[in-house]
């Protein structure tokens, strides 16, 4: 703290795992005099600088933009994906959410489809493979018509934007007891479904994405709603219903 007031003390129990196949365990660290204006990841930075000075291995965690849009960061804090505050990513979580003396258990995303690479870093490439399965409009560069040729009702464009806001962080999967990826997949299907540009490939898209999702080992949805509760972008569970309906429709139309 620089402004003279005393900061808070936090006791951390952090998951340490040397590499993918190594066993892991929770390790205790205590940090004193932390500013409530410090972000959660800045606290980990402070811890890491201390560990490096002591000749110890710093805690590995993913981060990039630190403004809640890239989707790189994400840990469980006391069992909650991205911590206790609603509608934020871990990098937007500030220590003012915690009381002096509190113990925080910090763990990586938990899912069979997200293997731990080191400490708090997991492999989320399964999400890229779901998008690669068909999460796009197949339009080659240069073949697009004039942008204003097709009018899109404002309400539809706004709705598409609500779904397209997904940052692919994986919190929905980490929070789900089935490790289901339906909120993530549903958000992309819904985004393209409400726009005219998404119509020509709609059956093929949903069928391929759902098949890939299952192949990657993500579980089924049992309507708990935990995914919506932890989503930093507040993607609504409506997209799961849209995904289910759209999938049923595609199956009826014979798409596989």
């Amino acid at each position: 703290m620089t402004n003279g007031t005393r900061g808070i003390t936090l006791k951390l129990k952090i998951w340490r795992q040397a590499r993918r196949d190594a066993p892991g365990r929770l390790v205790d660290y205590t940090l004193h005099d932390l500013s409530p204006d410090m972000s959660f990841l800045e606290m980990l930075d402070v811890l890491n600088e201390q560990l490096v000075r002591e000749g110890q291995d710093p805690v590995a965690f993913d981060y990039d933009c630190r403004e809640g849009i890239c989707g790189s960061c994400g840990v469980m804090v006391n069992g909650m994906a991205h911590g206790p505050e609603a509608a934020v990513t871990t990098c937007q979580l500030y220590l003012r959410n915690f009381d002096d003396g509190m113990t925080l258990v910090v763990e990586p995303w938990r899912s069979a489809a997200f293997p731990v690479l080191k400490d708090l870093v997991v492999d989320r490439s399964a999400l890229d493979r779901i998008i690669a399965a068909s999460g796009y409009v197949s339009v080659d560069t240069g073949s697009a018509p004039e942008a204003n040729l097709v009018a899109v009702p404002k309400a539809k464009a706004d709705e598409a934007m609500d779904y397209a806001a997904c940052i692919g962080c994986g919190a929905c999967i980490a929070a789900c007891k089935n490790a289901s990826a339906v909120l993530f997949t549903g958000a992309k299907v819904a985004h393209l479904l409400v726009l005219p540009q998404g119509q020509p490939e709609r059956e093929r898209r949903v069928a391929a994405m759902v098949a890939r999702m299952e192949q990657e080992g993500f579980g089924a949805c049992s309507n708990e709603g935990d995914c919506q509760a932890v989503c930093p972008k507040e993607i609504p569970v409506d997209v799961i219903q849209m995904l289910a309906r759209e999938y049923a429709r595609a199956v009826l139309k014979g798409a596989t």
Partner: protein
Amino acid sequence: MTFTTGHELDGAVPGGPLADKWDNHKFSMKLVNPANRRKYSVIVVGTGLAGASAAATLGELGYNVLAFTILDSPRRSHSIAAQGGINAAKNYKNDGDSVHRLFYDTIKGGDFRAREANVHRLAEVSVDIIDQCVAQGVPFAREYSGYLDNRSFGGAQVSRTFYARGQTGQQLLLGAYQALMRQVARKQVQIFARREMLDLVLVDGRARGIVCRNLVTGELERHAADAVLLCTGGYGNVFYLSTNAGNSNVTASWRCARRGAYFANPCFTQIHPTCIPVTGDYQAKLTLMSESLRNDGRVWVPRQAGDTRDPRQIPEAERDYYLERRYPSFGNLVPRDVASRAAKAVCDEGRGVGTTRLAVYLDFADAIARLGRAVISERYGNLFDMYRHITSEDPYEVPMRIFPAVHYTMGGLWVDYNLMSNVPGLFVLGEANFSDHGANRLGASALMQGLADGYFVAPATVASYLASTKLGGVSTDHDAFKEAAATTQNRIDRVLGVKGRRTVTEFHRELGKLMWDRVGMARTEAGLVHALGRARELREQFWQEVTVGGEPSNLNKDLEKALRVADYLEFAEVLTLDALHRSESCGGHFREESQMPDGEARRDDERFAYVAAWEYTGPGQDPILHKEPLVFENVHLATRSYA
């Protein structure tokens, strides 16, 4: 440190009238037959807007593409954080826009330090970008008619900015990322995630591959191809605190510079006027508040220095809306460099606000009274939320506190009209090149340039290079690959072997503070000379005193950072030397010695109407300055005025 002068550079600009150059050039360039394209492979380093759009398009065309990202997925590249919008000369608003006006605004906004032909091509291509993105399903904001909406950005008097709430970069990147993943599914593109390029490999003087570190296993990998496209963004993090992401860095560009690519105009750095002010030493980055906020927000400080009242208690007559006062025709929408310097000036006068006194107000009270809270929320809701999360203040109630921060770097590797560097086969796209923004970039033009380069320019010029060059096969067992891998390994061993007492972050923080204080918003000869000396000392201390945590053969972010900071320490000297040699003020480069009586920048076209391209000759050794003269045939070199 001083420098020697080299030769004159030729930008390879095609002949003919400005508006016809690109069309004529496209016709005169060589093509690769569709059946032959699969015989070529292309390395694309970086998967932001420039890299993802280039890799996707080259994949669509049939080339084999190897795409590399330091992040765990191409979707996370820092283009994703761009908030405000993307410019295009569609003239949907019927307010007098045209390709020529976008061209002119960009040249003028860049303070007449960009190459005319490149900028004109950018303006031409801008309209195709919007078409492409809409077809991909990018959910741009629309009017009730269902047609695309536009808003205004700094440095323009027309509304030409397309946007998707405050998340335009995200939506454009996801569009490019999805196009890229489609090519992955078609096996045209192979993604190498969590890889960092640590060297460029030249064979017979041509770029033929890279050495990269697998950031999970620590292994050094060699990859060969027929051309290398560098799309690795800017170097703003040389200032430590910036709006850039934690992993944005100069290493890929700098490693190319060390292999002979010229680094152009490194001193052209952009300080963005509207960022959330610094709060403590632990801070790892600064957060931008989009320029679009200046459409409706009014910037002010108290008239009296030391006025510490709650801003809501300060009556209208005791406020100074200094941008509206000094620049009546552009008001709050002056370009970024002008707005940043004006904020610094009022803070230097002691009229800054907040606990640090290093902030000004951005006030929405008038806009909320005029338009209602709902409209403001629809336009800027996510930005207001972001501000509230960080500061725990509600901008609907209290004015935002903002201050300038390093944001974008106009300088970058030198490229010719074809986006090829002086190293044959090495193309540089997006923020990583120097080419289109001169000494200052206008808002909403970075997304435009990244996608112009990636979707439309590079696919044509790279094809022409491949078609017109005799390229034999090359193996990663070639001596050049072995040498590059060994050099990289030695560097890693060396930095781990220092085992000193100061952390990598301590060095980075100290370098950043030096650069911000002496090579930031206002630069003087004495300050720059000091910075040169101090940067050199820091570089020497780094190699004697640094300590790096973790192991080399594992995921090790401290080692990643150490290698990047080592490169910043070399690069900082060249940036500073460039700032020292350019004793004029232009755009984001402000030399206190060169100003008008009213404090505006004084450009010196007689002496400095050129691109400064630096050839690196080794640490502590004098670099060579090559100049590309800037010839203006279509615009009149004028003093930039926004008054």
